[in-house]
Each structure stands twice: as C-alpha cells, then as structure tokens.
C-alpha cells in the first residue's frame, strides 16, 4: 500500500481556514492527508506546537495564515513569519527534513491556492516518507 502521510494543518480563522472552506464550497478536489486545527491567527502558533505535532507522529506540518499585511490582527502574521522561520531553521539543524514543515499565506479568497498547496505539500511529504525521527515510539 502506498504511504499516506498524516499531516497536521494549522490554519488561521480569517484567511486560510476560510480559504479552505471556499475550496470546499467550490468543490475543488485535493488529497485528504491534512487535518486542520483552527486557530484565530497564525501568530497563535507556538513553535512548540510544531515540535509536538512531529512528536505525535505528524509526517508534515502545514501552517496557513493571511498574507503579510492582510492579517486580521494587523501584524500577527508578521511576528508569525519570524517565529516560524526560526522554527524551521531549528528543525533543519536538528536534522529534520525541512520539507516537512511549510508555512503558506492563503487568503480567504484563495480556495484554489489552498487546494494546490495541500496537493503539493502532500506529494512532497509522501516523497519524504514516514517521519520517524521525532515521532514518539510507544
């Protein structure tokens, strides 16, 4: 059987989550590997959420927020950008494949972008194979 990755998505309420809804409303089809947690703003995402997600066995983590400048809370995603970029560097130096973590700006109107990103990211994570490094072995 093909490896079907488990991907954790964390989406901001105002843009990416709404965009994901739009993808549904417009009946776009995309792989169902991403399981989305809704938060109010991408800036809510504590870097430890990412580490924890990988420990919980996520093969990839996809974060979605409003485009810089369009944050519902003005500047939240600008902080998020810095904090998540740093998270990414840390994962990379720890030896975790950087391709397992991705941050995308997807607006409420970009349903197709959401579908595209999910499609791309799923393929990418699929190619990387199961994430075993951080996953907690029971």
């Amino acid at each position: 059987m093909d490896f079907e990755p488990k991907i954790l998505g964390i989406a901001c309420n105002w843009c990416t989550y709404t965009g994901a809804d739009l993808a549904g409303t417009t009946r776009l089809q995309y792989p169902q590997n991403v399981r989305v947690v809704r938060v109010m703003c991408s800036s809510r995402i504590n870097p430890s959420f990412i580490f924890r997600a990988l420990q919980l066995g996520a093969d990839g983590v996809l974060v979605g927020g409003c485009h810089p400048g369009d944050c519902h809370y003005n500047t939240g995603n600008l902080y998020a950008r810095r904090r998540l970029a740093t998270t990414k560097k840390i994962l990379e130096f720890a030896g975790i494949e950087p391709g397992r973590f991705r941050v995308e700006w997807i607006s409420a109107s970009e349903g197709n972008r959401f579908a595209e990103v999910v499609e791309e990211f799923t393929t990418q994570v699929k190619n990387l194979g199961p994430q075993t490094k951080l996953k907690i072995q029971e």
Partner: protein
Amino acid sequence: MTDFKKIEENLKKEAKRLLESGEVTVVLAYGKGFDEKHPMPFAAKSVADVDNIVFNEYCNYNMARYLVRYPQGTKIAIAVKAADSRAVIQLIQEEKIKKENLVLLGIPVIGMKNPKTDEVIDSKTTCGMHNPVLYDVLLGEEVHGQKIVSPYDVLAEYEAMDKDARWQFWKDQFDKCIRCYACRKACPMCYCDPCFIDQNKPKWADKAPQSPGNIMYHLTRFHHLAGRCIDCGECSRACPVDIPLYLFHKKVAKECEEMFNQVSGMSIEDKPVLVNFRVEDSDKILE
C-alpha cells in the same frame, strides 16, 4: 596575552572603591574556589569580601546570570567579559534590568580556558569577541590586532553533515541529557520562572530523562533563546554530560542574524528579533 593578574588587581581596586563609596551594594565578580583551577562566581558585598576576588583564565562564568536575582533597583557592579556584556545589553533590551543601576566593569580578555580540557575556548564555545561591548570602567588594555575568527566557524563541520547524520548526532547528544537543567540555570537569558518544561498545564513534555521530553525541552529552549542567546557558551560548560548546546545556539544565532540582520546583545536600543518584525521581512526566510 592578557595580564590576568593585572585585571585581578584592577577588579579588586574598582570593587573596593565602589563598595567603599556606596555607589553599589554588590559587586558581581569571581572568587576563590576550592582550588585555583576552580574559581567561583562571587558576590562581594563588603570591602572585606574584596580580598576573595580573583581573576584567571578559568573565570568563564557569565555573571549576568545573577543580575535578575537581586531586587529591582539594587545598585550592582558587574564584571563583564565580551559575551557577558552582551548578556547585560540583552537583559536591558528585555527590560529585566536598568542600565542606571549598573556599573559595568569591562574585562577585555583573550585566552579563556575550559578547566576540564585546558583548551582555549575563545570563539569556539563563545562569541569570540575579546572586548566588552558596553562598559563603564575598563579593567585592562583593549585587545586589538587579533585575527578575527567568526564564532560560526565551528559550525561548518555540522552544517556540512547529511541531515540524517546530523539528526543522529543530536539525538545521541540529547539522549545523554539527564534533565538537571544546569544549562538553563547557567544561562543569563533563561530567567523564566517557571520554565515551560516544569509545567503540568500545559504539559509540553514528559519529565522523564528520555528522548521525546529531552528533545522537546532542548528544541523549545533553542527557540526561546533565538535572537537572544549571546553566545557565552555557559550552557555547554555547565552541562555535566557535555552536550555541545553552544553549537545549536550558534546556528540559531547565525540564522537569526542572516534573516533579521541583527546581532543579539549589541545595542540597548534594539528590540529582541522574535518579538519584533519588519514589514519588509522577506517570505524567503520561510523557505
């Protein structure tokens, strides 16, 4: 080479003067330990204490660690080497201390050593600067003309590693961790009480000294110190099982410097990079 004896004399002289005049109530410096190779961090509170002050190549301690322990408003003199002065600057940036309550006794120095191995540690486990960035009194001649060594040079070997090899390297390192928390306790920037890892709600990780909890602790700590670590190397020196934490901190510092174009602890005007942003930050940093 640095004249350690001379600095020790000056340190004593200044400490005496400051305590005598009442300008400060504490002088944070270095004191005698159980032998010469093992000096200790020392808080001189009276003129009589000054005799106990020493300075030699093993006085690696970053005395900035102790600043937050004193009540706000305490007048403190503190001996600072290059990285230590950066820690002070960073703490001022973070409004944990106020410059006006401090007298910085700057120590320009080359040739600090690791007492376990007797190796010179400059720029290897530390930031590689020789002169304090900020000081009120300088206790020795500024060091000039030294070959400039990037503190990030030591990273080359690890950056060149294959990611799986690097993972194995860090996993082995973190597996050694016994969770004594000497790293965070020695760190001048780790002033959180309680530390996130000690919490039950939310419980970020297991308390047991085993892989998942250890990794969560260290990775999150690296993130908490991103853009704040001033590369004094104290975490690694404090570690009883010699985990080279400094490497990771240096790597994060290097990345932060590249991404945000700001070096931690260099100016009291700066704002810590991760609680700051620029509209023109590039999305490239996320790639």
